[in-house]
C-alpha cells in the first residue's frame, strides 16, 4: 500500500472542528442512504429534520425542551468518560432521580411550600441518581467489574422497579387503570413559559451545570485526577491518586446530574411517575453521543445537546409525516456515532502518501 499512517502529534482547533463537521456530514449522508431505501428523498428528509427542529418557533421550543436533559446527562457523562469510565447507566440514574423526586413530591409536597419542596426534590434526585451511579464505581474499583455491563444491568433493574412501583404500591388512586402515580401537587411543579414545556430556570440550571463541570474538569485538582486516571492510570498510581475516592466522587456527580435531568423531566413534562419508556425517551443513550460529539468537554455538551435535541425533534417530525418507524432515531444515533469515532482516526493519525522504498 502506498499510504502509510503516522501518529499525529498536534491538532489545531480548526482542524478538529473540520473533522467533527465532516464526520457529522458523512453520518447524515449515511442516514440519507437509509432514507433512499425507504423511497424517501434523502435531501428533503434531512432538510425537513432541521427545518422542523430549528426552522420554526414551535419546533425550536421542542428542541430546547429536549436539549435540557441531554445537556445535564451529556455533561455528566463527559466527566465520567474523561476517566475512561464508560457509564452507560444514565438512563437508570435519571429514573432514580424521578423516583426520589416523586416520593418527596407526593409525601412532603402537600405540607411544604413550593420554594422548599422543589429544591428538596432536586437534591433528592441528585442523591438518588448519584448513589445509583456510585454502585458501578465501587464494583469497578474494588472488584474489577466491567462498568459497561454493571451500568447496563442496573438500567434493567431500575426500569423494572419503576414499572413495579407504578402498577403496584405507588399506583395512583385517581388514575383509573393507568400505570401512573398520582400527580404531584401543582405548587411543587416548575412554572412553564406560556404555551411551551420550557422552564427558564431549568434551562439556565442545565447550562450552568455544564459550564461548572467544564470548570471542574479543566481547572480543579479533582478534574485533573479524573483526567490522569483516564489518560495514564499508571502515572496516577505513582502520583498517589486515590482511585477509589476519585472514581466514586466522579460517578456520584455523573449519576447525580442524570438524576437531576429526571427530576426536571418530572416537574416540567410528566407531573407524575409512569412507565420508564415514557419518563426517558432514551436520553441516557443519546447523551453518550452528545458527550462524544462534544469531545468529552462538559461545556461543549451544551452545543451538542442542542444539536441532538434537534435531531430527535426533527426525527419525530419526519417519522410522523413520512410514516417511518420509530426505530429510525436509533439508526440515526448509531450511524452518527460510528462516523464520529471514524473521524477520531483522522484526529490522531496522519495519512501520508509514500512511494515504496527500494
Amino acid at each position, binding site marked *: 500500500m502506498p499510504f502509510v499512517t503516522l501518529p499525529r502529534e498536534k491538532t489545531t482547533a480548526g482542524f478538529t472542528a473540520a473533522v467533527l463537521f465532516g464526520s457529522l456530514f458523512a453520518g447524515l449522508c449515511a442516514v440519507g442512504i*437509509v432514507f433512499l431505501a425507504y423511497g424517501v428523498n434523502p435531501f428533503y428528509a434531512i432538510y425537513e429534520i432541521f427545518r422542523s427542529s430549528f426552522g420554526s418557533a414551535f419546533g425550536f421550543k421542542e428542541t430546547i425542551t429536549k436539549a435540557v436533559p441531554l445537556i445535564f446527562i451529556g455533561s455528566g457523562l463527559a466527566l465520567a468518560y474523561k476517566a475512561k469510565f*464508560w457509564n*452507560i447507566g444514565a438512563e437508570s440514574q435519571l429514573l432514580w432521580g424521578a423516583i426520589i423526586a416523586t416520593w418527596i413530591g407526593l409525601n412532603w409536597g402537600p405540607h411544604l411550600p413550593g420554594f422548599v419542596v422543589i429544591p428538596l426534590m432536586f437534591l433528592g434526585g441528585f442523591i438518588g441518581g448519584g448513589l445509583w451511579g456510585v454502585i458501578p464505581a465501587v*464494583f469497578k474499583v*474494588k*472488584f*474489577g*467489574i*466491567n462498568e*459497561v*455491563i*454493571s451500568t*447496563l*444491568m*442496573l438500567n*434493567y*433493574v431500575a426500569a*423494572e*422497579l419503576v*414499572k*413495579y412501583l407504578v*402498577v*403496584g404500591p405507588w399506583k395512583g388512586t385517581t388514575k383509573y387503570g393507568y400505570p401512573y402515580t398520582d400527580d404531584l401537587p401543582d405548587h411543587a411543579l416548575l412554572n412553564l413559559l406560556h404555551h411551551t414545556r420550557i422552564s427558564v430556570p431549568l434551562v439556565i440550571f442545565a447550562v450552568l451545570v455544564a459550564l461548572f463541570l467544564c470548570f471542574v474538569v479543566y481547572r480543579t485538582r479533582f478534574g485533573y485526577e479524573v483526567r490522569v486516571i483516564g489518560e495514564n492510570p499508571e502515572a496516577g498510581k505513582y502520583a498517589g491518586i486515590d482511585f477509589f475516592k476519585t472514581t466514586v466522587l466522579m460517578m456520584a456527580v455523573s449519576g447525580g446530574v442524570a438524576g437531576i435531568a429526571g427530576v426536571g423531566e418530572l416537574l416540567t413534562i410528566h407531573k407524575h411517575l409512569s412507565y420508564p419508556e415514557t419518563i426517558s425517551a432514551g436520553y441516557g*443513550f443519546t447523551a*453518550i453521543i452528545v458527550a*462524544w460529539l462534544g469531545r468529552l468537554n462538559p461545556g461543549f455538551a451544551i452545543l451538542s445537546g442542542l444539536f441532538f435535541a434537534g435531531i430527535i425533534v426533527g426525527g419525530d417530525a419526519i417519522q410522523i409525516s413520512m410514516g*417511518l*418507524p*420509530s*426505530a*429510525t*432515531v*436509533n*439508526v*440515526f*444515533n*448509531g*450511524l452518527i*456515532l*460510528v462516523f464520529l*469515532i*471514524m473521524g*477520531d*482516526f483522522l484526529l490522531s*493519525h496522519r495519512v501520508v502518501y509514500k512511494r515504496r522504498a527500494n
Partner: protein
Amino acid sequence: MTDMITSILTRTVVAGTPLLLGTLGEVITERAGILNLGVEGMMSVGAVTGFIVTFTTGNPWLGMIAAIIAGALISLLHSFVTITLRANQVVSGLALTMLGLGLSGLWGKPYIGRPLPVKMNHVNIPVLSDIPILGRVLFSQDPYFYLSVALGIMVWFLMKHTKVGITVRSVGENPKAAETLGINVILVKYLSIMAGGAFAGMAGAHLSTAYSKSWIEGMTSGRGWIVIALTIFSLWEPSKAFLGAYIFGGIFVLQYVLQPLGISPNLLAMLPYLTTLGVLLFYGMSKTGKRKMSAPATLGEAYIRGSR
C-alpha cells in the same frame, strides 16, 4: 412432579441455547483481543433477518443461514472501525448495538404482530428420546439446541487442541510475537470478530424462529449484554460457557415458575440482571487473580502493525 421437572429443564435448555451460542462467539472474538459490545445489536439483526427470511421462504433453515450471514456482515463494521481505524472498542461496540437495534426495528416494522407460518420443528432422536426426563430434555429439542452443543464442542476443540486455536489466542495474547511468526494478525482479528457476529446472528434467529415465532422490537431484551457477562464468567473457556448459559437459561425460566406464587412479574424480571451482577461480584471478590490471568492480555487494545 416429574412432568414439572421435565418441563422446567426443557425450557431451561431452550432459554440457554441463544446464550450459549452468543457466548461461544464472544469467547472467540475476545480471545483474539477484541472486545465487541455489539452483541445485543448483532443478535437483534440476526433475529429480524431470520424471521423475515423464514417468513418469506417458509424455510426456517434458510432463516438460520441468513441470520448467520447478517450477523457476520454487520460485525464487519466493528472490525473496520476498531482494527483498521484503531478506534475505541467500547464506543464502537455501543454504536454497533444502537445501529443493530435501530436497523432491525426498521426492517422488522412490517412484520410486527404477524406469527410465522412455520417454526423450527423439534427433532426426536430415536431411542434416546424415550429415556425418562433426560430424553425429553436433551434428545427432543429443536435443531438449534443440537447445533449449539455440537458447535460448543467444536469451538472448545479448535481453541484448545488445534493450530487455529493457538493462532487466535496468540493474536490476543501477544500480537507482535504472532506477527513475527508470520501470522496475519489483522486478518485473524477480522475473522474472529466475524465468527462472533455469525454466532450472535444465529442466537438471534433462535429467538425469533424457534424460541418464539414472532418478531417484536427489542426481543433480545438484554441477552446480548448477559452474553458479555457470561464470557467473563466462563473465563474465556468454551467448555465453561455451557455451564453459564444453562444456569442463566434456568433463571429466565425461574421467572415464570415463581410467578404463580404471587410475586410481582416486574420484580421477577429483574432476576437475570441481578444474577449477572451477583455472579460478576462473586467472581470479583473471590477470583480476581485467576480472572486477571485468564483474560486475553491485549483485550480492548488497538494493534498497530510494526509498532514497538
